[in-house]
């Protein structure tokens, strides 16, 4: 009982305090990849310790069950209610009911999430197929501007006839990268390479899974900050990870000017720019003013430490909660 409370307390503390810390550490997108890892680890840590608390709770209820049963027997046979019955009725029965309710809720949530994922997967497959049939294959020389003609997951790059500039990737097997003719009209060759490298990085990093997982958690626990703020943060950091991959491949100016061209629908020559905060401008700003090396190292170290701490803490708390509770709490 006491152990379960301690573990649950840890989960609550992480769920409420870590988002504040993490959004400060990842605001400028310094080491986006580590930031993404830290957010995901924080979510996993909270989930794992909340789950462990439920298991401990159920354990406490089961351990007390025999005493309860014995007490009920005795009271039925006509003897007076002992303190044991009282204790059983007050603690063990509600505890067991709570653990059972939590477990059932978890099963329903996971099942609902799985159903949503399957449906989304079907829609994505249908979308990718329709795009492959309706669109035209991007000529390979444009494709190779990204450095290689490699395809991710056997996916194709197709061009749809549409005036508005748009570029996106559809996850699945095979995946697809879709561009509009409006996008091709505002991008030069190097910029096109940057856009393709960015989308390929999304597919290679399986960012859609991370985003859909964090959305599923946010829907299940809308009032818990580490989950409710997850989707926006994960999406933002995934964009920045993909930007980093594209910048490594095609250089920062090509990516930056591609971002501006696609964002405004006007052709933008690659050159130095000045910028200002929404998620797109944050990406622009980051590309314009890359963090200095020392700062980068400090942020990276802080994020790495936090990730390791979170990853190990939920396990340690669960293991040591019993002994600690036995020592310091009046019940246990």
């Amino acid at each position, binding site marked *: 009982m006491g152990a379960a409370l301690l573990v649950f307390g840890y989960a609550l503390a992480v769920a409420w305090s870590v988002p504040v810390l993490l959004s400060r550490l990842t605001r400028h997108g310094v080491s986006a990849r580590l930031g993404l890892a830290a957010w995901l680890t924080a979510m996993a840590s909270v989930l794992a310790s909340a789950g462990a608390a439920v298991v401990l709770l159920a354990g406490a209820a089961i351990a007390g069950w025999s005493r309860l049963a014995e007490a009920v027997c005795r009271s039925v046979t006509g003897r007076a209610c002992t303190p044991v019955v009282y204790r059983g009725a007050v603690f063990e029965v509600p505890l067991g009911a709570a653990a059972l309710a939590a477990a059932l809720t978890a099963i329903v949530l996971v099942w609902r999430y799985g159903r949503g994922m399957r449906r989304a997967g079907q829609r994505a497959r249908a979308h990718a197929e329709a795009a492959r049939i309706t*669109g035209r294959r991007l000529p390979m020389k444009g494709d190779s501007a990204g450095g290689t003609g490699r395809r991710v997951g056997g996916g194709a790059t197709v061009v749809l*006839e549409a005036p508005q500039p748009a570029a996106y990737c559809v996850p699945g097997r095979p995946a697809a990268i879709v561009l509009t003719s409006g996008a091709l009209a505002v991008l030069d060759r190097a910029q096109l390479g940057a856009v393709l490298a960015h989308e390929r990085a999304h597919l290679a990093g399986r960012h859609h899974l991370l985003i859909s997982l964090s959305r599923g958690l946010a829907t299940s626990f809308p009032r818990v900050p580490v989950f409710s703020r997850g989707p926006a943060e994960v999406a933002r950091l995934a964009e920045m990870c993909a930007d980093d991959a594209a910048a490594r491949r095609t250089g920062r100016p090509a990516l930056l000017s591609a971002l501006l061209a696609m964002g405004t629908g006007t052709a933008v020559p690659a050159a130095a720019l000045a910028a200002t905060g929404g998620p797109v401008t944050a990406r622009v700003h980051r590309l314009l003013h890359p963090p200095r090396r020392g700062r980068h190292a400090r942020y990276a170290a802080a994020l790495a430490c936090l990730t390791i701490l979170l990853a190990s803490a939920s396990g340690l708390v669960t293991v040591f909660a019993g002994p600690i509770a036995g020592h310091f709490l009046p019940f246990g």
Partner: protein
Amino acid sequence: MRGFGDLESVIMHMVWDHDSPVTVRELLGELRHERSIAYTTVMSTMDNLHRKGWLAREKDGKAYRYTATASREEYSARLMREALDGGGDPEMVLSHFVAQMGGEESEVLRTVVRRLTGGRS
């Protein structure tokens, strides 16, 4: 070399380029200008497209005459709608290169671009 899946795309584009309903044999004739391909391959591909709802067909003597159920532009527009609003399914994750922006943010970007291009021309 194009895969088998591409054939569906090639055939749909050919059907769209025709003004009138076409038969398998007519398309086979055109396809053979650029590749060697069996009649049965084209037939089964068109049968698939019919089954998936891309092609409508009606009997004309012994053969079928095929037409597209919607124009290329209609399909493109439908795809773009789905891509931009997720087709009403919040769980379908499409990673756009540039996310939809609020009016203020896109104005800021536009200003940046104006300054850039204005300074150059």
